[in-house]
């Protein structure tokens, strides 16, 4: 069981039903002004972005190997077995390393609050585990956003790419970007043209820091022995000099 969302920008008509459904679910304010903002913020956890005559969506991509989860010093961010990356505000101390780490700019911050929290999409984990689709999926009139098992979503994406090959740029975004994501995307143009980063490694981002972190036990053990040894030798030398001085 691993949920995923498939967003097909070729089917998106920019009606913003997903935005308002999302705002309603989180009890965030929503009006024409907020609709026009077109960027993620603490009060807008998903947004439609107009790219010329095309529309795309921004939201947390729910990476399979999330950089934010590995970044968080207090484990406030977790990748659930069900797929969504969730956030526990009670733990968060507000270091904002998750925001620096994220390749998609998904975590946002309550910059003007006295006790601020990070805000991000949780892929409606409470709805999905109750067997319901995400709020954005339910609101989408055009099947541009659909959700379900990740394998099923990949199969659906492949089917769409095969059935109308001319309508699509032949690639599923999120299959292996930085280790893969639980939000998959389709587009008629290369993905950087709809604002997705094209420079991500295939490897999960946490691997990059882990290669340094995993050296720590070695540094501690070898370092302690080495420093202890150097201390012993240099001070022993001094003692020997002293003792010999006394003898002669």
């Amino acid at each position, binding site marked *: 069981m691993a949920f995923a969302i498939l967003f097909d920008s070729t089917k998106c008509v920019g009606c913003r039903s997903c935005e308002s459904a999302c705002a309603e679910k989180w009890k965030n304010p929503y009006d024409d002004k907020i609709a026009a903002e077109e960027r*993620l*913020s*603490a009060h807008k956890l998903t947004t439609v972005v107009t790219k010329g005559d095309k529309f795309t969506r921004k939201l947390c991509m729910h990476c399979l190997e999330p*950089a934010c989860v*590995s*970044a*968080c*010093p*207090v*484990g*406030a961010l977790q990748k659930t077995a069900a797929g969504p990356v969730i956030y526990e505000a009670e*733990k*968060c*101390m*507000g*270091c*904002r*390393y998750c*925001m*620096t*780490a994220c*390749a998609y*700019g998904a*975590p*946002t*911050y*309550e*910059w*003007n*609050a*006295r*006790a*601020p*929290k990070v805000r991000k999409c949780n892929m409606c984990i409470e709805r999905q585990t109750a067997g319901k689709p995400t709020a954005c999926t339910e609101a989408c009139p055009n099947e541009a956003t659909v959700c379900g098992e990740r394998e099923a979503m990949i199969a659906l994406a492949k089917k769409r790419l095969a059935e109308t090959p001319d309508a699509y740029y032949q690639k599923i975004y999120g299959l292996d970007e*930085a280790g893969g994501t639980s939000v998959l995307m389709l587009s008629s143009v290369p993905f950087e043209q709809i604002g997705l*980063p094209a*420079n*991500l*490694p295939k490897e999960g*981002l*946490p691997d*990059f*820091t*882990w*290669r*340094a*972190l995993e050296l*720590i036990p070695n*540094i*501690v053990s070898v*370092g*302690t022995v080495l*420093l*202890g040894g*150097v*201390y012993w030798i*240099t*001070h022993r*030398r*001094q003692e020997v000099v002293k003792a010999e001085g006394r003898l002669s």
Partner: protein
Amino acid sequence: MNTLRTYRFTFWRAVFGALLLAGAYATYLRFMYGLGAVTNLNDQFPWGIWIGFDILCGVGLAAGGFTLVATVHIFNIEKYKPVLRPAVLTAFLGYLLVIFALMFDLGRPDRIWHPLIMWNPRSVMFEVGWCVTLYTTVLFLEFTPAVFEKLRWHAPLRWFRMISVPLMIAGVILSTLHQSSLGSLFLLVPHKLDKLWYSSFLPLFFFISAIAVGMAMTIFESWHSSKAFGRQLEGPLLASLASVLAVVQSTYVAMRLADLQHRHAWSLLAESRIETWLFLLELGLITLPLALLFQARVRKNPRALYWAALMVIFGFITNRLNISVTGIERASGVSYVPKWTEVAVTLAIIGIGFGLFRLAAKHLPIFEEPDVHGEKVTPAKLRALRVA
């Protein structure tokens, strides 16, 4: 002469007062109205100079503590003993100020203790948090003997002597870990940090440059202490510290250049971008002092040596700001210039640092050298030794 002194004193006192006032007002705004009101940070650019300067530079500039503890006590190179106390003091004050500065940047400073309870061993930030906490404790324990000596409490001094060796080793290991880990923080953003700076050797570069800047800071402080109290480190000692600095800094520069070569990144310098110029500025500031430090004439001239040390320090600061601010800006798609309140808090913290160091150097046995390990040397005995 006397009037000149008074003037200098009141001038700096006025600067200090102004910095504190501005800082206090910015602090009020920060805690009343939140980060958004006092910083130019936003969702696209979540870290500014409070992380880039206060934390990344602060921790590095305080690195003299662990390198000199290792040199004097572990490698037993006794001639550097007079440098030890000022270096440990800088380190201790530095770390306290870093933690103080962090309280401004954290969204929830009341939860600064969370990483001690809520673990995520896969997080570099978690490791940095633990190391900084533990190392500040170590520095506290390494520094307290100076206070006890002042108070003439001999019993606790014996206790400190007992635990000092494991403590020092722990301090060196902890420093090695978190100085390098501050570089590891940026390993997570290969997609954001400009190719001029992103390298898998970032942790190593952070570590080596911290060692170099720690020594440069010691030279810097000795100069200022001599200006303020006429107390300073002896010329030959400073000169020898400078030659070690020259070796460490040239290793650092060589590694940076080899890394550029290895990553085939030289061609990036052909592009006329703001990043190129800042990179060249950094490269100049870390390379130029070498030309000075390798000359015996410079090492023996306190003023020239001071300028060389200052260049090492500014090169270091440029590097940290390039990696945490300018090198990230392009990928974030926004341009960040710190708000006056961010600058005010940072300057006030620097001011507090100078003030505290001054107080401690004036009232505690810092630039005279009684020691935890060997015999207790009183200033009188020291003078006698010098005469002899």
